[in-house]
């Protein structure tokens, strides 16, 4: 007990636990504890709409005009891409891929293009490519400009980073709403959304690149008599070039990811739309065929732009670059010439794709029907065994309907006594762990969804204050107040527990894979390309397999989130473990540790920072997937954003979107130690 008073944190958390316990016990009697009183809720979304709509109406003509301005080059690029006969395009692409990313990717790209033609998605693919091509230059330029400004004026940097965080975590669907109102339904809104979403990676990489220019390069420039302008253009910028190209690579991938997502607007006949409409029509075959196109497009774009950033080490040099450019241009021009000469030429085969889709659809349906017992069994087991109890708690899950028996008072008493006993045993030596067990047991009893809201508020505020101080406390209070007042508490809790479960599973499974990959080189060689591929794919793609195996529902959403968010723990854990200095491992081995002791006592603690970063990334990935996963059926904030998009309700979209963004930013700040 004396320990309790020596460490104020323990005392505060003990009191907090007592308060939470009291609230949980009181909740059945006192209504306002169980759910936030309706009378206190404010129509924040409506107020926002009332404020925003007149603004939208005044700005709308400008927006529509702007949309037409964007529309012209977009159609031009698209028409040009489609005008080039596909064989010419494929050969040109092959040469570019060969020079930059090497033989493997060149062949992969060629096969991918043959596949696209065969299944009949050439037009759709070129439409998507056109939007990416058009949104890339503004995103790169603006991102570069912001990064340079943040580097030049250090006071601007902190504000800039917050803005970039918001831009990246604010769900695209949410800012798509005002964009649609302003710019009208059409691909221009998609271009703008894609630009907004792709700016942050460029800006961040510019900041990092310029900051990490070696001091000696700058000093050499200064001592050679460079003016500030000369120093920037002749020393800093070339030294940061690699990092800037990494930024271009990431911006390209972000842009592609967003272009696929904003296909939801419709009206441009692109590949994302193809997947989405197939998904809605439950045509699994078509969905998969189009999904493969997206995967191939993502891999080719990533490897080519990525190779530029690493100096094209695998590139095959057939001729000098200038000659190669001439040849590529000549091939494309020859293709265009051919098309002009023979206006009736139709190179794209018809019908093959449709037939393939039908056939694939049938066999997939067969497979799904055949495998259904396995997957629905798995789904039900996880649902009833783990997810439902976490959501509605042992108190409710243990009912005749769910588990086949009702919770008896003696069971509750046994649960309480067991928990208390465990806590008491742990308390003297590891008081923090004891407290953690008490909280976990309490939450597991009521379930996350039914954990009284004042308890969540109390824990969140205390955690924010204890971990990061008053600044974060203010952010958390604002966010919670906004969520409670706007009546979004239940969706928020759904988001919270979806994220929590996804992160928990990802960290456990991904962490285990990461550890195994760090200990076993052969496994690492298998895992690494899979992680690479998963990380380059647009978020949207992860819905397809989840949907096929588990049908519509929250569980499917969870699987999709996990598929997307499992890469960071795998990568960071392996990276952290492999990054442990070899001399420390040698020292430990010399002292005679077992392999397990080496992992537990040396490697894992030293890999701590990397692992923490991995967990942080997992949370970010999971939260950013919430809105996408809403497409396959959830009841969380993501669904609210999606609903708002359907109703063009900018206010609701903003409140729900901001809640998700703040959830992500708060989680990030809490996990990131100074």
């Amino acid at each position, binding site marked *: 007990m004396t320990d309790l008073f020596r460490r104020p944190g323990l005392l505060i958390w003990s009191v907090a636990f007592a308060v939470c316990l009291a609230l949980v016990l009181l909740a059945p009697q006192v209504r306002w504890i169980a759910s936030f009183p309706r009378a206190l809720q404010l129509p924040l979304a409506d107020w926002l709409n009332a404020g925003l709509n007149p603004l939208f109406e005044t700005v709308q003509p400008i927006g529509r005009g702007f949309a037409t301005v964007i529309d012209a080059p977009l159609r031009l690029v698209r028409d040009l891409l489609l005008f080039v006969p596909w064989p010419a395009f494929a050969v040109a692409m092959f040469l570019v891929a060969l020079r930059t990313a090497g033989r493997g990717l060149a062949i992969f790209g060629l096969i991918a293009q043959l596949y696209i033609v065969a299944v009949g998605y050439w037009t759709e693919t070129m439409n998507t490519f056109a939007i990416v091509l058009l949104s890339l230059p503004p995103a790169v330029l603006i991102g570069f400009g912001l990064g340079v400004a943040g580097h030049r004026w250090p006071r601007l940097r902190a504000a800039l980073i917050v803005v970039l965080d918001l831009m990246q975590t604010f769900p695209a669907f949410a800012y798509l709403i005002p964009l649609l109102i302003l710019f009208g339904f059409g691909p221009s809104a998609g271009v703008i959304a894609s630009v907004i979403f792709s700016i942050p990676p460029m800006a961040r990489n510019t900041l990092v690149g310029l900051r990490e220019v070696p001091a*000696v390069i700058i000093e050499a420039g*200064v*001592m*050679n*008599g460079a*003016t500030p302008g000369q120093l920037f253009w*002749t020393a800093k910028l*070339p030294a940061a070039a690699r990092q800037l190209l990494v930024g271009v690579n990431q911006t390209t991938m972000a842009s592609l990811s967003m272009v696929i997502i904003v296909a939801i607007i419709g009206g441009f006949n692109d590949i994302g739309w193809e997947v989405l409409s197939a998904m809605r029509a439950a045509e699994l075959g078509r969905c998969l065929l189009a999904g493969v196109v997206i995967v191939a497009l993502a891999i080719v774009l990533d490897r080519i732009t990525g190779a530029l950033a690493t100096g094209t080490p695998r590139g095959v040099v057939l001729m000098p670059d200038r000659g190669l450019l001439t040849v590529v241009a000549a091939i494309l021009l020859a293709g265009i010439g051919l098309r002009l000469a023979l206006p009736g030429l139709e190179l794209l085969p018809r019908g093959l794709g449709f037939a393939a889709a039908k056939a694939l659809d049938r066999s997939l349906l067969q497979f799904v029907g055949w495998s259904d017992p396995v997957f629905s069994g798995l789904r039900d087991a996880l649902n009833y065994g783990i997810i439902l109890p976490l959501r509605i708690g042992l108190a409710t899950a243990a009912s005749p309907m769910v588990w086949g028996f009702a919770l008896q008072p003696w069971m509750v008493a046994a649960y309480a006594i067991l928990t208390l006993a465990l806590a008491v045993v742990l308390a003297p030596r590891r008081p923090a762990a004891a407290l953690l067990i008490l909280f976990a047991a309490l939450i597991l009893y009521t379930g996350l969804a039914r954990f009284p809201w004042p308890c969540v508020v109390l824990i969140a505020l205390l955690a924010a204050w204890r971990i990061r101080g008053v600044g974060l406390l203010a952010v958390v209070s604002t966010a919670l107040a906004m969520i409670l007042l706007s009546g979004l508490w239940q969706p928020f809790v759904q988001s919270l527990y979806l994220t929590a479960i996804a992160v928990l599973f990802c960290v456990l499974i991904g962490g285990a894979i990461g550890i195994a990959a760090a200990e076993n080189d052969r496994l690492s060689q298998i895992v690494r390309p899979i992680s690479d591929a998963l990380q380059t794919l647009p978020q949207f793609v992860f819905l397809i397999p989840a949907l096929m195996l588990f049908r519509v529902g929250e569980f499917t959403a969870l699987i999709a989130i996990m598929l997307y968010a499992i890469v960071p723990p795998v990568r960071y854990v392996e990276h952290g473990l492999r990054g442990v200095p070899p001399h420390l491992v040698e020292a430990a081995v010399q002292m005679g540790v077992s392999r397990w002791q080496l992992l537990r006592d040396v490697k894992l603690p030293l890999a701590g920072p990397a692992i923490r970063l991995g967990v942080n990334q997992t949370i970010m990935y999971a939260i950013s997937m919430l809105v996408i996963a809403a497409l396959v059926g959830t009841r969380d904030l993501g669904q609210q954003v999606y609903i708002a998009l359907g109703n063009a309700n900018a206010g609701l979209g903003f409140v729900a979107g901001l809640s998700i963004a703040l959830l992500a930013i708060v989680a990030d700040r809490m996990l990131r130690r100074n």
Partner: protein
Amino acid sequence: MTRSSAASPASRPVKISCRNLWKIYGTPPDRAMRPGQGPAAAEFARQLRAAGRVPALVDASFDVHEGEIFVIMGLSGSGKSTLIRCLTRLIDAEFGEVRLDGEDLLAATPKQLIDIRRHKMGMVFQNFGLMPHLSVLENVAYPLKLQGEAKPAREARARQMISLVGLDGREQALPSQLSGGQQQRVGIARSLAVEPDLWFLDEPFSALDPMIRRQMQDEFLDLQRRLHKTIVFITHDIAEACRLADRIAILRDGRIIQIGTPADLLLRPADDYVAEFTADISPASVIRVGDIARPGQEVAGARTVAGDLPVEALLTDIATGTTDFAVQPAGKYGGGGLTAARVLRILGRHGRQDDETAAG
């Protein structure tokens, strides 16, 4: 090892000088404060440390004369990098003054400063500081390009410099394709491309292997014999300092504790710290005959030797029975008489504190 200097450097005009220079890291102190000198400066530094600030440079004063090699020597964290950066104004000192050709360098405007760096200063860096994206030729031509010189002219000049440091044929190589020694030759060529009078070298050879380092030191001395630059040279290696320096300043915790010729440091160390430093240096190769000759004590019939010879050159003669030497002035070294007994006594006593040697 003959020196180019015709007369003692001290008799030539001062090229760059600093007076009571202070660099303080941490929250900037009040500019109105006066740090004082001598014991007052020590007290001021103590107060700064107590207030959580780091006085990286404490009351540094010295003059560097034209054509002199002035070596600043200290261990890591002693403030030598800070000192050279204050002299070049890569960082700004809090107190004190720096004068270049008698002009106040700290008062120079950014524009004037750029001009001074373009024409009067060259600098070589420990980690070379080569632009990784430029070829050897472009790197050496870089300072000329910054001045807006036309491509043919600057490349011609750069080729001259590359040939001066013996890198002919490697003009098109990228820095990453060169060895450390070659990279530093590029760094040297670049720093000399604008023909500066004042040459700063910040631990230029510390990143190199010992064999290469020695070779580069010889080439450096050879270059200096031809170019007669005024040189401020930073090192943490006392052997390098003794090999290259006309004078050495020893820096400890930001404070200069002794300035003197290599022989001064060996024969008359200012304190135990300096004595400790020079303990491993072979006095026979560093001390010149002229350093220990006694003017006016020539003995008739003595063997004549030049004043700039290292003392070790006499050992064979001593071993074969020569007892008296007549030292002829050479370069900056004076002449006089020298007995074999004195030579042996000095070599034997080196490193001990009760040294009354040269003066006595």
